[in-house]
Every structure is written in structure tokens, then in C-alpha cells.
């Protein structure tokens, strides 16, 4: 590994499903000599692409986990994080983005910017990730890179500028013109290994000149020198243009666009050159950590390998040799045999094995400098933990983790499956912060919850394949919540006299709706009407009541409980008595506080040919959706709507049959909203019946 941080690139490859991300990664690994043969995603040779290391991914042809892999191109070291393209795995994408310095956004030259690309790009903007775009599949019928550039500008608001021009398109794609050096690039040999630079073909010369002018116009604003050279109509040095493109890209004000076809082995090597030239090295990016000893004060990480260590665990995997933890170091050096300290748990751990990952294969190393991405074995931690050496106590800022919105009951088929299931669940919930699991005490069922149907499906498959845990799966359930809508007073006395010492406690006060926060407890007791030691008991009692609402047994959120009155008994009052009194008071207040049921609302984008717009809107409208708007661009259209999650089960089938399979949709959690009265009544009835029956 290079000590020189200028020569390190930590990049992500992210894109819409099926735009050829895995194929491209595979080609990169081939050209950088990490692998010696090329396999396809759905490989006929039964081997499968190297980055899709999980069996399931191979079978479905999609990439689920973001495996990190290392390669070197010319004199730079590149760590590639392969990121999933499906929206249900957004947390994985987000976690990958957290540790990246730059990214390649892959787009299909036919499909263009689709709704998932928009979601991914929004996340990249959130994490300030500079990116270059690669328009892939230019060999496909209907390829139109210029249209895709237009969409990058319109839909993603990127200042997208082509730095290459295709030579031929569709089946006639031969290579490309580099608009910076003004040379044609061809890829000779069976696997496109031999790059041949040549003169620009005559028929493209005018076009290339024109596009170069556009490029220079766009990048000149990032370099005064370049602007001067242009004004004086001098010959413009290539390095000057490259420097301007780099500056614009790093400032997130420019997105250079490249083209090619990974499948046909065209354009991959120039893309690697562009990664080196235009994407940032670790020192180009500012990262901050929170000082836990100093009121979470923000500190810039130094990238200096001699400073105290700060490293972030961003990904866990269960491997053959135990837990494999992917970490990125931000400063200091991670050395084999040294002791590091987990700032979340306060535990010290010894670095046993340190490896550099190449998908399934690994290479043992002695140390990893700052800015590097490596794997650790035998370190017990959760995803998102920060490691330091004992000199400092920093934490990398917490990652944005959405709450799960859908749940399923799972029942193991036999005892063996039971054991394996709990192992698997333990592992998954450590790996993935959006995957939660718990046992419902009333039904004794194991419940798993996550971000969408596919998200949970994938885990059930993994349980079966990796842990041999066969489970029966219940119908998906939406994670409803309960909330109150108005102020309500309570004044409740808990009294029990059953021989021996009794129980006594009275709690008075009110509850009211709380926006933003889940729960707040306010103590306004004066004159010791409730003794100090029993105040926490009241808090505890309220919190226990919040776990299960009285309408449908869903957790209650958004309540402020304030106590300002009460009484006690010198002998009969106890912690337990006040907890009971608070529970009674909560129940009393809750009934008067206008309780309602809240449901998760998803931000849905359906994309398809314009002729189906009416049908798409109709289908969303029938499902209680609120259509936010539509955008039409030529022959296709996107409909955006806020939809209740409960109405979205099976929507993909409906949509397919409505649109002859030509439309697709993405879905992302947006907010919780009150359910309409008719639905609420239905839910309450169902809940009451299920209680009666069981």
C-alpha cells in the first residue's frame, strides 16, 4: 500500500440495478490484474462475477452487500466499494458513501437516469461525494449518451459535461474520442487489453471540436489560467484542462461524463485514469469526528499516519474465520498486534489479523495507514463503531439510520432451525442497523423488521442458505404507531390492600402531543407530594405504557408527560406502587387525549412510458396515495406520490400488468401520518378480534 496519500483513491461504484455495475467492477479488477479471467454476473461458467460473493447475489443477478476490494492502477491504490442498487438496501449504500472519498455513478445509455439513480445521487449529495458519471452499455440498441447527459442536468441538477465522444454507437461502438487530449482511443485484443491512441476519424473532427469548446467553456470557470489562455487564443495545455476538471469535480460543481461499454471491454481503462485524475484522495476531503471527552466537539481528522488512530467500522461480514470487520482509517496507523479501543463500548481489543480484501480472497498485511480501507478479524463490534488508540476518545459522526417500517413473524420449523435462526438474527442485526428483531411476548413469535419487503426477503433467504435455518414466514405487517392529538389531564390513585404491606401512590398531571421527539418526562412536583426517590418510578411507568397503545397495541410516540401533583403513604408507597400509579394515570389520560393510529408513508416514484401515466396515477389513487406531481420528458414520465406502506404490498405485480411490464417503481420511507378514520376502525376491530381469539 502506498504511504503517499495522493496516490490513494477510495471510490464507490453506485448505480441503478442492471446498469452494469458489477460487470464494470469485474472489468476493473481484470485490467488491474487482480483477477485473471472475466466472469459475467449471470455467468454461464457457473463462477459468477467476483464482487458478488454471496450465492444469493449470484442467483438473482443483483448485488446485495457492498464488498470492499482493493486494486492498483498504474501507481495509485484504489479501494472499491461495490454498492447495492436496490432501494431496500439504502442503508448499505449510505454506509458505503460514508467512507468513500469519491464515486463513479454508472448509468445505462438506454435507460438513462432512473428513479433509483435519483435516490442514490441525493445520498451522494448528502455526504458531499464528488462524482464522475460513466454512461455504460453504449453498445446497446437505443444507446443515446447525449440524452443521458441531458437527464443528469435536468433530473439530478448536476453540471454534467462530456469529456469523451463516442466513436460509433450501438453495435458500431468502436471506441471514443478523448476531448481533453483530442485523441481517439481504441481497445484492441480479445479482452480490450491493448489500448491504441490514434487520430480522430475525419467524420468526427468537427463534432469533437464543437464538444471540446463546450467542455472548455464549462471548465474555464474553475481555472483563471485556463480562462486567460482561452481569451488569448493560445494552445491550451492538457494539464491545465485536467486541473480545471479536477477542481470543478472536487468542489461538487462539475460532473465529468465518460462513456463506454464494460461488457464489450470499451472505456474501462480511461475511466480508471479519470478516477486517478479527477476524484479526490483522502486528504482532499474533510472528515470530522466528535470528541466524546469534550462535549462532542467537532474535530477535523488529520489523515496523518503518525497521529493517534481514528478508524470507523462500516461493514461486518461473517466469514469462514469469524467476524470480518471492514474499517476505514482516518488518521493514525492500524498495526497488527496492537491494542485498539472501541469508543462506543469502551472495550479494548487486540488487532489479530489485518487483511486487505479482494472480494472473497484476502491478503494478510502488517499495517494500514490513514485513508486506507482494510478488514479486521476477530474484533467484536457493531457496524458504525469507532476505534481509537487510548490517547483520544473520538467518534465519527453518527450515521443517519432510518427506523424500520415493515415487520414479519418468523417461526423456525424445528429445534435445529431454532438455534441457527437465533445465530443468524444476532449476526444480521449487528451487520445492519435497519434490521431489527425481537420476540413478541404475547404471541411468543419472533418478529423481524426492516425497510421493505425485499430487504426482509433477502435475510430470510440468507438464513436458509448460510445458516441452514428454515423458517415459516407470516404475512408482512406494517409498523403502525399510536399517538395522541390533544392535551389531557390525569389524576390516578393506585391502592391495594391485600394483607401485609399494601401499595399506595397517586399521580396527577397531564399529557400532551409532542412533535419531533418520541417522549419527554417533565417533573414539576413541589413540596415533596411525591418523594424524590419515586419520581424515576413515575417516568418508568409512563415509558412502559408507551410500549403498547390501547388502540391496536402499537408503540406510542410523541408524548410529553408532566406530573405536578400526587400523594404517598409512609409505609405503603414503593417504587412498584408509583410505577403502577403512573401506568394507571397514563391509561386514564390516553383515553381522553384523542389517540390515533399512525402509519408509515412512503415516497414512491413510478417511472414508465407516458402513455401509461393515466393508468399509473389511477393505480396510486386507488391505493390511498397522494400524488405529489408528475414530470414528463418526451416519451416517458415519472409520477411521484406519498403512499401508505400498507397499500403497497403486491404493487409491483399490479404495476407490471397495468403497463405491460414497462414501468417500475422505487420506494423510500418518508414519514408517519395519521390513518383515515375508516382504516383506523378496521384496524381496531382486527386487533380486538385477534385478542379475543388468542
Amino acid at each position, binding site marked *: 500500500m502506498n504511504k503517499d496519500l495522493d496516490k490513494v483513491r477510495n471510490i464507490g461504484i453506485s448505480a441503478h440495478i442492471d446498469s452494469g455495475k458489477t460487470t464494470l467492477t469485474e472489468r476493473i479488477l481484470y485490467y488491474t490484474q487482480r483477477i485473471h479471467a472475466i466472469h459475467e454476473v449471470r455467468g454461464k461458467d457457473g463462477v459468477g462475477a467476483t464482487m458478488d460473493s454471496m450465492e444469493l447475489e449470484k442467483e438473482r443477478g443483483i448485488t446485495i452487500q457492498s464488498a470492499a476490494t482493493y486494486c492498483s492502477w498504474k501507481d495509485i491504490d484504489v479501494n472499491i466499494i461495490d454498492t447495492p442498487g436496490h432501494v431496500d438496501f439504502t442503508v448499505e449504500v449510505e454506509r458505503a458513501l460514508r467512507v468513500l472519498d469519491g464515486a463513479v455513478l454508472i448509468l445505462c445509455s438506454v435507460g438513462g437516469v432512473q428513479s433509483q439513480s435519483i435516490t442514490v445521487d441525493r445520498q451522494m449529495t448528502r455526504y458531499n461525494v464528488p462524482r464522475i458519471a460513466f454512461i455504460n452499455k453504449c453498445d446497446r440498441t437505443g444507446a443515446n449518451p447525449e440524452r443521458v447527459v441531458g437527464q443528469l442536468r435536468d433530473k439530478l441538477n448536476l453540471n454534467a459535461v462530456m469529456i469523451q465522444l463516442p466513436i460509433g454507437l450501438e453495435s458500431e461502438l468502436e471506441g471514443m474520442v478523448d476531448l481533453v487530449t483530442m485523441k481517439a482511443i481504441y481497445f484492441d485484443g480479445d479482452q480490450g487489453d491493448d489500448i491504441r491512441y490514434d487520430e480522430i476519424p475525419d467524420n468526427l473532427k468537427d463534432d469533437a471540436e464543437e464538444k471540446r469548446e463546450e467542455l472548455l467553456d464549462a471548465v474555464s470557470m474553475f481555472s483563471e489560467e485556463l480562462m486567460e489562455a482561452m481569451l488569448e487564443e493560445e494552445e491550451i495545455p492538457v494539464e491545465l484542462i485536467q486541473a480545471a476538471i479536477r477542481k470543478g469535480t472536487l468542489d461538487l460543481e462539475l460532473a465529468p461524463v465518460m462513456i463506454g461499454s464494460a461488457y464489450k471491454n470499451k472505456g474501462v481503462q480511461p475511466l480508471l485514469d479519470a478516477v486517478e485524475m479527477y476524484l479526490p484522495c483522502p486528504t482532499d476531503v474533510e472528515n470530522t469526528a466528535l470528541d466524546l471527552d469534550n462535549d462532542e466537539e467537532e474535530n477535523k481528522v488529520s489523515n496523518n499516519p503518525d497521529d493517534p488512530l481514528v478508524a470507523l467500522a462500516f461493514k461486518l461480514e461473517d466469514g469462514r474465520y469469524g467476524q470480518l470487520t471492514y474499517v476505514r482509517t482516518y488518521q493514525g496507523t492500524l498495526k497488527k498486534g496492537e491494542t485498539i479501543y472501541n469508543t462506543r463500548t469502551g472495550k479494548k481489543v487486540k488487532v489479530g489479523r489485518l487483511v486487505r480484501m479482494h472480494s472473497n480472497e484476502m491478503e494478510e498485511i502488517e499495517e494500514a495507514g490513514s485513508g486506507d480501507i482494510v478488514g479486521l478479524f476477530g474484533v467484536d463490534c457493531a457496524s458504525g463503531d469507532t476505534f481509537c488508540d487510548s490517547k483520544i476518545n473520538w467518534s465519527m459522526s453518527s450515521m443517519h439510520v432510518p427506523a424500520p417500517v415493515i415487520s414479519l413473524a418468523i417461526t423456525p420449523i424445528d429445534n435445529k432451525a431454532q438455534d441457527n435462526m437465533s445465530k443468524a438474527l444476532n449476526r444480521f442485526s449487528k451487520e445492519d442497523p435497519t434490521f431489527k428483531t425481537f420476540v413478541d411476548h404475547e404471541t411468543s413469535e419472533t418478529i423481524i423488521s426492516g425497510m421493505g419487503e425485499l430487504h426482509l426477503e433477502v435475510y430470510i433467504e440468507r438464513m436458509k442458505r448460510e445458516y441452514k435455518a428454515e423458517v415459516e414466514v407470516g404475512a408482512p405487517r406494517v409498523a403502525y404507531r399510536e399517538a395522541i392529538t390533544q392535551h389531557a389531564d390525569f389524576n390516578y390513585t393506585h391502592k391495594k390492600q391485600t394483607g401485609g404491606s399494601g401499595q399506595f401512590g397517586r399521580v396527577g398531571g397531564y399529557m400532551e402531543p409532542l412533535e419531533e421527539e418520541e417522549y419527554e418526562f417533565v417533573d414539576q412536583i413541589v413540596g415533596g407530594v411525591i418523594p424524590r426517590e419515586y419520581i424515576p418510578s413515575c417516568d418508568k411507568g409512563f415509558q412502559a405504557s408507551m410500549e403498547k397503545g390501547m388502540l391496536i397495541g402499537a408503540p406510542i410516540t410523541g408524548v410529553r408527560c408532566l406530573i405536578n401533583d400526587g400523594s404517598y403513604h409512609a409505609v405503603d408507597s414503593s417504587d412498584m406502587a408509583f410505577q403502577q400509579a403512573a401506568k394507571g394515570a397514563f391509561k386514564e389520560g390516553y383515553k381522553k387525549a384523542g389517540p390515533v393510529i399512525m402509519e408509515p408513508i412512503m415516497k414512491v416514484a413510478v417511472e414508465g412510458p407516458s402513455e401509461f401515466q393515466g393508468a399509473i396515477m389511477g393505480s396510486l389513487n386507488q391505493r390511498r396515495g397522494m400524488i*405529489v406531481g408528475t414530470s414528463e420528458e*418526451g416519451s416517458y414520465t415519472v409520477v411521484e406520490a406519498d403512499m401508505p406502506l400498507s397499500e403497497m404490498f403486491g404493487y409491483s405485480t399490479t404495476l407490471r400488468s397495468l403497463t405491460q411490464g414497462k414501468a417500475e417503481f422505487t420506494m423510500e420511507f418518508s414519514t408517519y401520518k395519521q390513518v383515515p378514520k375508516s382504516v383506523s376502525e378496521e384496524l381496531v376491530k382486527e386487533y380486538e378480534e385477534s385478542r379475543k381469539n388468542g
Partner: protein
Amino acid sequence: MGYEPLVKKNPLRVLNLAGNDKKMGLIMARAGLGKTALLVQIALDSILRGKRVVHISIGENLEKTKLWYDDMLEIILQECSVAKPHELIDMVQRHRMIMSFKESAFNRARLEERLNDLILQDIFKPDCVVIDGFDFTNMDHENLEDINSLMESLRLQTWFSATSHREDDRVSPSGVPAPCHELDDLFETVVLLKSEQEHVQLEIIRHNSDVCSDDSYHLILDPATMMVKKDD
């Protein structure tokens, strides 16, 4: 609805323009003077009175159009607070539908098809349509008449915005600048925005199909908010 006090500063409310008649209105100005802001004001005014509005945005994306509403609503809420702002925001969302089109994707046939999609399937029944970014340069009298009769048949009040250019000094007899100088008779109301030193002046040059030359049809607006200026 109970939100009426919120719109009392709306420039059109002060002039008592936004009537219930299903006629076409036009806002004209040079680029950057606040046509979109004023259209959004008109839309919000209708929405706050319980009406439904389709906002057609030509050449601008959905996200940016939504932002316009968020911003204008925020300004209104700053001027006049309400007890439950999220209910108001929710109400506005339910009474508004944004349709964005790429320039080349918009035409009369498409407009009719889209409005019918909404109305016939009972998805959204608009009372008012605002059309931002419509290209009047290639629009002749007959075609605009055609759109007018479409909107009349659907019983929709329609507001357009149009950009005038400094270099084009053609003007209709009633004072409507190019590119709408030959179309002005089709509009019930024509509003002109002009830039003065520190404010924007709103001039009504046509109202109820009459030419207005009276000074009482002039208003001073704050360019930051497009609200009527307090001092004046």
C-alpha cells in the same frame, strides 16, 4: 377553511382580482422579476380558499416547483402564524398537483389528456390551473383560442406567465408587450411586473377585458417576498 386571514397580503387579493370566473389571466415580466412567485401566490390564494390547483411547470423540474411552494408558504406563515402549521402544509399538498413537462413534451393535446386523466378518474378535480413557462413566441391567436375553449369547457380558471424581452418593443394598443401583443384580447386580466429601484411594481393593464390606466391599479411589491409592501 379558516385560513383566509393568511392571504390578505396577497397582491391579487388586495386588488380583488382572483374572482371565481373561469377566465384566462396573464402575468408578464422580464426574466427574473418574479412571475413564478406571483403564480405560486395565485395558486396558494386559491388553495387557502379551499380550491384545488394544478400547477403546470414547463421546463422546470418537480423538485424546484415544490420548493417554490415551500418557500412562499413559509413567508406567509412568518407574516401570520397559525396554530398547527403542519396541518396547513398538509392541506396545501392535498389541494395542489404539480405537473412538470420538458418544453418539447408540452402541447394542447397533452394538456387535455392529462387534465382528463385527473378529472375522469376522479383523482384530482382542479378549479384553477397555473401554467408557468409557456412559450408564447410561437403561439398564434387561433391556437390560444383553442386552449381557451378547452379550459372553458373544463370550467377552469387559468393563469399563464410570459416573458417579455427588452429588445422587443412591440406593444398592443392596450399596452401588452410582445410576445403577447397580438393575443391580449383573449385574456380577461393582464398583469405586468416592472422593476423599480428597490421594489417591484405590479400594474394591471387589463381587467374584466377593460383597459386600465388608473393609478389605483398599481401596487408596490417587496421583491424578496412578492408581498404587498407594508409602508405603501
